[in-house]
């Protein structure tokens, strides 16, 4: 391999290196100084994020198994931003005494899943794709069960690992059929010969259901809420934004690159699934009291919106999907950041605990409100633009009724997002959460997400940049 090849893989290689460094330092440092690992890890990853943004040229490695383009590295960078914010926000939780001796595992596992996602996104064939997928999934199960003394955490872990095993089994079966029917596992070769013969449609459907599991689309979403609730809040936010984002990226790539022959079919499939997802996600979210569970269902509904962009099958569609995921990362992390900060300092997680929050912690509540508005797609925050462009691209494919259903669902979702705002601003209570001041790292994380919520919308260059890189169906 030449140096250039290394440069092509710099995301992956650097992250592997970072993981290894952390592993070694974890062995080196004495238990007394373990807490130094956290800023170290965060610093390293910050470097990783920045380096990721350096201009990259496209190329193919390993005989087409691995390929990278500016678009793909952009996707990776988007994920990086999310992970960085999550790391910042997880500061108070990782520093808890009970996590002292295993704090480096947190980072290492997180990074290894991220590596998996990198590979998954820039995979050139189904083998690499599958490898990345599993690498991205299995460590998360371990992370979900991170706090092993909690029954919920363990339950989340087992639910995640078993159902993901089932889904990847079905997905694999689909892959095997694809291989059997095309004789290749390389994306471009498969794409060249793929048609809508029944067996290939069958294989595609198996594949789609496996992916739907990752993005937690109805009816493959059932694990989501439980895992989100049981897992530590930062892991939950990681699941809800980063792994969902990565899965959506690869899904849109595969749909656009490999299965573009089946455009009509997968458009209809996504149509059905997205309508289901939006309705079910919203209806479940209506009732939730536990904030993590609430956000879980809201993120399911959001996934339904993402599909609208994919269905366009055009450059606009892909742009809107990536853009929305970027916006969604900021908004959701804003919400999760607040939830995490509050849980870390008070251990309260129910919506009713948030009553009268504005009186005691105005800044947190304001950020939460912004995040909620952004998720609900209310201007002037970024969420509005994200949703609007998703709908625009769906409409560009003539799916007006779908857009109508989607906006109606946005209205329903506005109801429960406003319930949070209501709790914080309107509801009165005798025992509000006491005022507290979170540490600088958390605040930095919150500020970053807040900035994102505000800036990404108005700053049209972001959208235009994404658009300049993204592609439509071939």
């Amino acid at each position, binding site marked *: 391999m030449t140096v250039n090849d290394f440069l092509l893989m710099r995301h992956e290689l650097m992250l592997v290196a970072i993981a290894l460094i952390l592993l070694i330092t974890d062995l080196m440092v004495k238990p007394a100084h373990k807490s130094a690992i956290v800023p170290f890890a965060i610093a390293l990853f910050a470097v990783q994020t920045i380096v990721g943004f350096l201009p990259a040229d496209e190329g193919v490695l390993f005989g087409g198994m691995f390929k990278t383009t500016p678009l793909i590295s952009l996707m990776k960078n988007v994920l990086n931003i999310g992970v960085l914010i999550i790391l910042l926000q997880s500061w108070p939780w990782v520093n808890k005494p009970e996590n002292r001796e295993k704090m480096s595992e947190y980072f290492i596992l997180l990074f290894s899943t991220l590596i998996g996602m990198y590979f998954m996104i820039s995979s050139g064939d189904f083998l690499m794709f599958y*490898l990345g997928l*599993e690498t991205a999934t299995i460590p998360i199960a*371990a992370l979900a069960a991170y706090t092993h003394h909690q029954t919920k955490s*363990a339950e989340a872990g*087992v639910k995640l690992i078993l159902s993901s095993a089932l889904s990847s089994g079905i997905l694999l079966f689909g892959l095997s059929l694809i*291989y059997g029917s095309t004789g290749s596992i390389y994306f471009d070769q498969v794409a060249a010969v793929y048609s809508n013969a029944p067996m290939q449609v069958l294989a595609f459907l198996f594949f789609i259901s496996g992916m739907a599991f990752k993005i937690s689309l109805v009816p493959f979403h059932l694990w989501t*809420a439980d895992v989100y*609730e049981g897992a530590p809040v930062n892991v939950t936010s990681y699941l809800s934004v980063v792994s969902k984002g990565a899965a959506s990226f690869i899904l849109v790539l595969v749909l656009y690159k490999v299965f573009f022959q089946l455009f009509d079919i997968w458009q209809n499939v996504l149509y059905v699934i997205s309508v289901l997802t939006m309705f079910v996600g919203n209806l479940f979210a209506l009732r939730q009291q536990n904030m993590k569970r609430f956000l879980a269902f809201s993120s399911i509904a959001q996934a339904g919106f993402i599909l609208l962009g994919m269905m366009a099958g055009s450059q606009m569609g892909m742009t809107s999907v990536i853009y929305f995921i970027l916006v969604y990362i900021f908004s959701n992390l804003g919400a999760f950041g607040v939830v995490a900060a509050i849980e870390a300092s008070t251990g309260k997680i129910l919506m009713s605990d948030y009553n009268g929050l504005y009186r005691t912690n105005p800044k947190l509540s304001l950020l939460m409100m912004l995040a909620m508005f952004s998720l609900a797609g209310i201007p002037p925050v970024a969420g509005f633009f994200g949703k609007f462009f998703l709908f625009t691209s769906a409409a560009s494919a003539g799916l007006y009724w779908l857009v109508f259903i989607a906006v109606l669902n946005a209205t329903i979702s506005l109801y429960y997002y406003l319930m949070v705002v209501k709790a914080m601003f309107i509801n009165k209570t005798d025992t509000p959460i006491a005022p507290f001041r979170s540490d600088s790292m958390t605040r930095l994380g919150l500020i970053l997400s807040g900035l994102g919520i505000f800036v990404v919308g108005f700053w049209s260059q972001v959208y235009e940049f994404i658009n300049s890189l993204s592609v439509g169906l071939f």
Partner: protein
Amino acid sequence: MTGTIPLQYFLIISTLMFFTGIYGFLTRRNLITMLMSIELILNSVNINFVAFNRFLYPDNLHGHFFSLIVIAVAAAEAAVAIAIIINIYRNFRSIDVDKVDEMKF
């Protein structure tokens, strides 16, 4: 040994295994048994890959490699799964899947 057994047989076997695995996953109450059913599914996939490769596309080795990787991943998966199941056992004093429904609705 060439082509004495036609491809269909392999596919039938693999399909049977696949659905047996799913059946087991959906019905068995014991977490370990469910894990085994998962293995069945994965192995059916392996059979598919190998059989396809052997019969249809003998000139490349994708299928073989794929099945190898799947086996490896399956092992890793099983490892993590069992670790978590042990964790479950610690917390619930049982590995009956129906007990593990603390979080619902």
